[in-house]
């Protein structure tokens, strides 16, 4: 909490001021005092107290006048008015001037303590709200402030703002709609201002957020900036950051004001940044690849030696086996090059109609020989209803190939040779309408440390036999395809890798 609130006590009766000061000090407040309205104002300016407690009846400048002056200087200042009996009229005036609270004369400590606590918590709430505020939100506060004052400055501020500003009155009709708002929402101001309601202008989802805000508890009403992609009526998608303030006048709801910032440019820059970070990562850890490349070289050298022997001895079998080795290693180096390229380049998925199950079947055909040679049982359990979808078949192929290869490696690496090793491939549609590809193995699994490093460039536990690029590339392809990868693993038990992609089924055209 804040230490020592400073309280200004103003009363023409010196004794009262002294008594109050004394009891407040013993409660841990800091006090300053004045014995007239005029002096009160001087002290207020000089000391800028947090809370002012002023008597209403004083010769010369009275409490009301002082309240008015203080509020002119700082409308947020908490001013507690001390009234006598029968001061109804001045009490009402004080309310209009913005007094925070009233206590009756003679001032009792308990009543004052309660009023001060209330004032303090108001200040505290304001402080926490201020903590959220970035520079921009200060601008918002200014904007809301200005809206209240209905000055020219307000219009200027609103029209020239780089943020889109849209305000609604209590009936949710648009009353403020600045040029930037017109740019973002694509509707001309003349068609919107005083004509449209919140539901005409916004999509239901956003409209709901703002409408609900009004119902929230007072201190939760103002939320920090949120991000959202808005779909405009003319079909554009604009990423925005938005915030909103609920406006009250004399404790009565009068409307809301919303602020939007177009993030298109920022998002583009972010993408570029990610891109260049990716390149840097490749550069930094490329040395980690040296091992892998060395292994390929070993393969190529060995293969060419066997080919030489085959030629010399006219031995077809040697020729064939050497040539196989060479071809295999050429493929490894071209896959590596391909992975590096895929990883370092931004790529949009090439969407087309394809059958995920055909891809899975192809892959299993391709890998079943290897699996059998390592005593790994290969099985599948596919959801028949999936059919044809719109997706990038290359992404699905590449991602599954990497993950299945890893699953088989995990079986091979497993220390427990008594296990019957298995790799299962499953598909289904989940409740969020995503198509899920699951690759489950009962291989070595991963400890926490390995799990954390999975997507680190060139992280591989396979020494010269792995590139540490597989998951990195897979992760990137899936991300570009608006999908996610989920991983469950337990050391010594096995792992499940789950790829989820948006499911867009293609209606089968049967008959004709």
């Amino acid at each position, binding site marked *: 909490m804040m230490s020592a609130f400073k309280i200004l006590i103003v009363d023409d009766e010196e004794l009262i001021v002294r008594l109050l000061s004394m009891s407040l000090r013993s409660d841990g407040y800091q006090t300053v005092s004045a014995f007239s309205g005029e002096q009160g104002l001087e002290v207020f300016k000089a000391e800028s107290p947090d809370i002012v407690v002023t008597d209403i009846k004083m010769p010369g400048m009275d409490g009301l006048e002082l309240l008015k002056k203080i509020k002119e200087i700082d409308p947020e200042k908490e001013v507690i008015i001390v009234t006598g009996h029968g001061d109804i009229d001045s009490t009402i005036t004080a309310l209009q001037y913005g007094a925070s609270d009233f206590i009756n004369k003679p001032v009792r400590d308990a009543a004052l303590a309660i009023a001060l606590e209330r004032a303090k918590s108001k200040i505290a709430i304001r402080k926490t709200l201020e903590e959220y505020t970035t520079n921009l939100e200060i601008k918002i506060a200014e904007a809301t402030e200005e809206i209240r004052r209905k000055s020219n400055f307000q219009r200027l501020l609103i029209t020239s703002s780089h943020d889109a500003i849209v305000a609604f009155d209590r009936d949710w009709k648009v009353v403020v709609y600045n040029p930037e708002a017109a740019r973002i929402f694509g509707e001309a101001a003349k068609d919107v201002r005083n004509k449209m309601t919140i539901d005409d202008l916004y999509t239901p989802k956003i409209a709901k957020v703002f409408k609900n805000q009004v119902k929230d508890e007072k201190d939760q009403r103002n939320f920090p900036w949120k991000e959202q992609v808005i779909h405009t009526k003319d079909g554009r998608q604009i990423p925005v950051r938005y915030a909103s303030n609920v406006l009250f006048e004399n404790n009565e709801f009068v409307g809301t004001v919303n602020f939007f910032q177009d993030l298109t440019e920022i998002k583009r820059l972010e993408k570029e940044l990610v891109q260049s970070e990716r390149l840097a990562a490749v550069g930094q850890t490329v040395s980690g690849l040296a*091992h892998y490349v*060395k*292994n390929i*070289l*070993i*393969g190529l*050298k*060995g*293969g060419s*030696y*066997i080919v030489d*022997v085959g030629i010399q001895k006219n031995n077809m079998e*040697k020729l064939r*086996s*050497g040539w196989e*080795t060479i071809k*295999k*290693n050429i493929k490894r180096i071209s896959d590596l090059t391909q992975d590096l390229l895929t990883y370092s380049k931004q790529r949009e998925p090439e969407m087309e109609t394809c059958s995920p199950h055909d891809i899975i079947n192809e892959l299993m055909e391709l890998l079943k020989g290897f699996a059998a040679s390592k005593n790994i049982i290969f099985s599948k359990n596919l959801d028949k209803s999936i059919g044809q979808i719109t997706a990038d078949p290359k992404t699905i192929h590449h991602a599954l190939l990497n993950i299945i290869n890893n699953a088989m490696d995990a079986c*091979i*690496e*497993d*220390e427990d*040779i008594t296990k019957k090793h298995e790799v299962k491939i499953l598909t289904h549609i989940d409740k969020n309408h995503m198509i899920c590809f699951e690759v489950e193995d009962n291989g070595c699994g991963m400890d926490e440390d390995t799990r954390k490093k999975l997507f680190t460039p060139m992280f591989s536990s396979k*020494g*010269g*036999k792995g590139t540490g690029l597989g998951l990195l590339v897979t992760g990137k392809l899936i991300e570009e395809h608006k999908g996610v990868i989920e991983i469950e693993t337990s050391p010594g038990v096995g792992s499940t890798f789950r790829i989820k992609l948006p499911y867009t089924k293609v209606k089968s055209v049967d008959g004709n």
Partner: protein
Amino acid sequence: MSKKVLVVDDDPDVRSFVVTVLEENQYIPLIAQDGVEGLEKIEKEKPDLVILDVLMPRGSGIRLYHHLKTHDQFKALPIIMFTGIALRSFLKSQKVLDEFQGAEVPKPDIYLEKPVDPEVLAAAVRKKLG
């Protein structure tokens, strides 16, 4: 009579290379894919020399080497370490294992770092077997 040489390596490319080198130099090659299979073959086939990879899944070369050097019946069996990792890293991991198992084993007589020319490999085998 031709001597038997066992190659323990999980990489089929390496195996066929070493096998070819051995054949070319009139040795009888035997193969094993990992440490466990390696030990089985050693017990059954009684090779005259073992060419051993360090990094393999399951019962790594380091462990097999350790086993051979700490069991009397195998102590005399000559071993060529044949591997992708540098000798320094190998010695370090061997030291860790020594400390862990409380037995100190001798350094390998011959340590070859891949890639190796066929002539160099053949010469190493000849040096051990004559």
